[in-house]
């Protein structure tokens, strides 16, 4: 009895304790408070997680500034000359940090406003419903939601020193532009930095092991981006793997191997190694209390993001669902709504309803089935591709490259997948995604009046192409 009493005095008691204040964790905390649960979020670093501090947000700030810088050329076309040699990249980087600071304190403010406790410290699960912090404090909670996110994957031989060999953290912290940059891995992060660095005048080589850059995106859409990259002078090497690396005094020499097995030597001032991410699931006490992890360290989850141990939930980058901020947030909402006794609309994130987005210029966004997958699976589909240049707006704003592509079920008309590449593609995708999630038919979007001139007209025209003919083609 005595020990029970002591425990009660020493610990805080919550309905749910969230570990990690990334887009998964902080959104979960707020949702919990909205539903009347007593919640806290434990964070060892800054609120906002990778996304806000070392991911989505600072990278988008750099991309925006790269776009501005790049568009100066357009100004020259109308006689405005700007001395581009005066570029101070330290200030560019500084602006990206300002954005993260503003948003991070914004997250802290939101948590405060919603009366969600923000606990500073490194958390470890000490038992069922019990968390211990590095300062010895204990937290009791009916449910524990683990949202500890991920970190850059390091591959032997290509260890980060963050001076010559950078992770995404390193390049976001970098305050001086290198002369040349070799990027290993052409996923979303690799492609975005290829765009940014190229726009600021860095000599960029982009290397991808798979047959094309952004290997999990639709090839026809990716081909547009690939061409654009090559046109602006990025050297793109696909079907090529990095074999070994040698650090020299002021450069790095990397041996690559193309698909025929022939070696290629590339020397660059810096290397950005973006091979992937690893989940932060060590030293959390997960295994000790019996939570199953898969062979790569991810936490498999069932309905409503439950782990195999009742009362322990997992969301975001530590689960095998796509490592995206919006997936983490949605999973947080689902888990919390379930804990609060509600029945969430979905038992988990439905993969075909998750949009992917790459924010280079042109942008690329998509969801659902790709054409090659549809063919492999023997799906009977209809396909319609509308080139962006068919929408007058794209010519008016000087961004004609790109396309909107839709795949529908041949018999039911169900929207199976959509892929948009071009200016503002990451915004355009949502009309199509709404169409998919609300189960609209091609005619619903094709018949809807779209304002002229907009890029969204390309979406309408692509939908027209499914059962009829686009007008501007």
């Amino acid at each position, binding site marked *: 009895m005595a020990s029970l009493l002591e425990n009660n005095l020493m610990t805080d008691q919550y309905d749910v304790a969230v570990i990690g204040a990334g887009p998964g964790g902080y959104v979960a905390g707020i949702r919990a408070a909205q539903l009347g649960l007593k919640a806290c979020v434990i964070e060892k670093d800054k609120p906002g997680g990778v996304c806000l501090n070392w991911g989505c947000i600072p990278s988008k700030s750099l991309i925006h500034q790269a776009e501005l810088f790049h568009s100066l050329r357009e100004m020259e076309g109308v006689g405005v000359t700007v001395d581009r040699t005066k570029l101070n990249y330290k200030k560019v980087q500084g602006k990206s940090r300002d954005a993260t600071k503003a948003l991070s304190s914004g997250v802290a403010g939101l948590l405060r406003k919603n009366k969600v406790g923000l606990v500073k410290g490194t958390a470890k699960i000490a038992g069922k419903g019990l968390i211990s912090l590095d300062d010895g404090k204990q937290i009791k909670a009916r449910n524990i939601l683990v949202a500890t996110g991920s970190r850059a994957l390091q591959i032997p031989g290509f260890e980060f020193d963050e001076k010559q060999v950078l992770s995404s953290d390193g390049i976001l912290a970098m305050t001086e532009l290198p002369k040349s940059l070799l990027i290993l891995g052409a996923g979303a992060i690799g492609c975005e930095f290829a765009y940014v660095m190229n726009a600021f005048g860095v000599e960029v080589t982009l290397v991808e092991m798979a047959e094309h850059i952004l290997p999990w995106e639709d090839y026809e859409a990716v081909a547009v981006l690939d061409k654009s990259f090559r046109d602006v002078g990025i050297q793109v090497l696909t079907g090529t793997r990095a074999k070994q690396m040698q650090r020299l005094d002021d450069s790095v020499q990397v041996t690559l191997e193309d698909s025929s097995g022939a070696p290629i030597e590339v020397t660059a001032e810096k290397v950005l190694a973006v091979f992937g991410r690893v989940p932060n699931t060590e030293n959390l006490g997960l295994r000790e209390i019996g939570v199953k992890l898969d062979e790569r360290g991810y936490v498999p989850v069932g309905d409503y993001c439950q782990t195999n141990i009742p009362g322990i939930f997992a969301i975001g980058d530590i689960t095998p669902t796509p490592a995206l901020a919006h997936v983490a947030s949605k999973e947080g909402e689902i888990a919390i709504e379930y804990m609060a006794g509600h029945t969430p609309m979905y038992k988990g994130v439905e993969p075909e309803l998750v949009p992917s987005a790459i924010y280079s210029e042109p942008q690329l966004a998509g969801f659902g089935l790709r054409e090659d997958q549809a063919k492999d699976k023997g799906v009977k589909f209809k396909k319609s591709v509308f080139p962006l240049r068919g929408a007058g707006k794209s010519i008016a704003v000087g961004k004609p490259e790109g396309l909107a592509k839709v795949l529908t079920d*041949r018999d*039911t*008309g169900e929207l199976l997948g959509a892929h948009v590449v071009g200016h503002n593609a990451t915004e355009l995708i949502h009309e199509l995604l709404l169409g998919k999630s609300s*189960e*609209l*038919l091609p005619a619903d979007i094709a018949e809807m009046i779209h304002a002229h001139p907009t890029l969204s007209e390309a979406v309408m025209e692509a939908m027209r192409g499914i*059962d009829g003919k686009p007008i501007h083609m």
Partner: protein
Amino acid sequence: MAKDYVMPKLAMAMNEGTVAQWMAAEGDFLRPGDVVMAVETEKVTYEVEAPHEGYLHILVPEGETVPVETPVGKFAENEDELKSLQQEVQSQDADKPVEAAPSAVPGVAAPTGTDLRTASSTASGGRIKASPLARKIARDKGLDIALLQGTGPGGRIVKRDILLALEQGIGRFAAATAVGGMREKARLPLSGARATVASRMMESLQSSAQLASRWESDITDLLRMRTHFVAREEQFRTSVSMNAFIIRAIVSAIRQVPIINAALQGEDIVIYENVNMGLAISLPGESPWDSSLMVPVIRDVDSMGVVEIDREMKALVERARNGQLGPDDMKDSTITLSSTAGLAPPGMSTSPVLNLPNAVIVGPSTPQEKPVSRNGEIVVRTMMPMSMTFDHRILNGEPAARFMKYLHECLEHPELMLA
């Protein structure tokens, strides 16, 4: 000019209709009021009259289902116009295969551009909320969405509801007829869990000698005793329910009358040492109209206190709700509890059907406050309707009555459970 003759919208929820029969022939001259065709909807068959005067030209053959507002025929002003209409059809027929090819479902108009537009405008006029895709699949598969329940946002019928209905055979177009005066709402297949319950109930009633008895127990003191347990919810990690106390009382009464906890095995009556309590649980059904029934078992309740019984019971119910019960969870019951407390109106008593091979099933129901006489005074007490059904092949009235009496006494004087 010839006028279109369309499938009329005859009821608010009507989205499509079947041309059951053409009552007038191709080329007939009709006047307003003449009967043209019989239209079958999911509910009723209507005879429809001609809206205008003219020569009838038929476009849609008998037996075909089309969305409302789709032209099913034309009215020509004169015979020349009729002739040219008839020729038009022949020439159109020549390129038909190209257009018809995408339609995989016989009897449904090929989904050409025009048909789709007609369909979606109908959809927005109807009162039933369903996604366009759900409507399309339902139409193609001959499913009446008016019979389905939606699980999408705001109760909207979405694709998964249609797929589920197809799997379960709910909402198939019932043969419509106005003759019998009965209109079908749904057809539920007697299969799966529903068929199992049906056959077990029949078997129980037909193969045993069931006798039901009812009484009332004053649970005022028991309720008061329970408050001490509820107050210690944190400590016990459960808020002990009435059912746990009733189970405990049944165990006490079985100790007094062991033959209650028995079964007939061939020529023998087997009396069991341990008490495995079957728990009748009602769960959501496979369709929105029915419910499903399961009887998972809490093993060895005779060795447990009320706290443990309660925790086990709640864990079992939770697993039942999550669909996690396995065959082992349903095995080896020696007696069953089927409570309708909270579900049934206060004071109602039941006569539950025996869960074979158990000799006894106990059926408490919703308590109510009643004036009763205590020591010559009228006082208000909480009375719980109780019932028990037993198999007269296994035990006679005397042990049954003794069991009921002791159970009654345990409920009225809970301290007896300590015995």
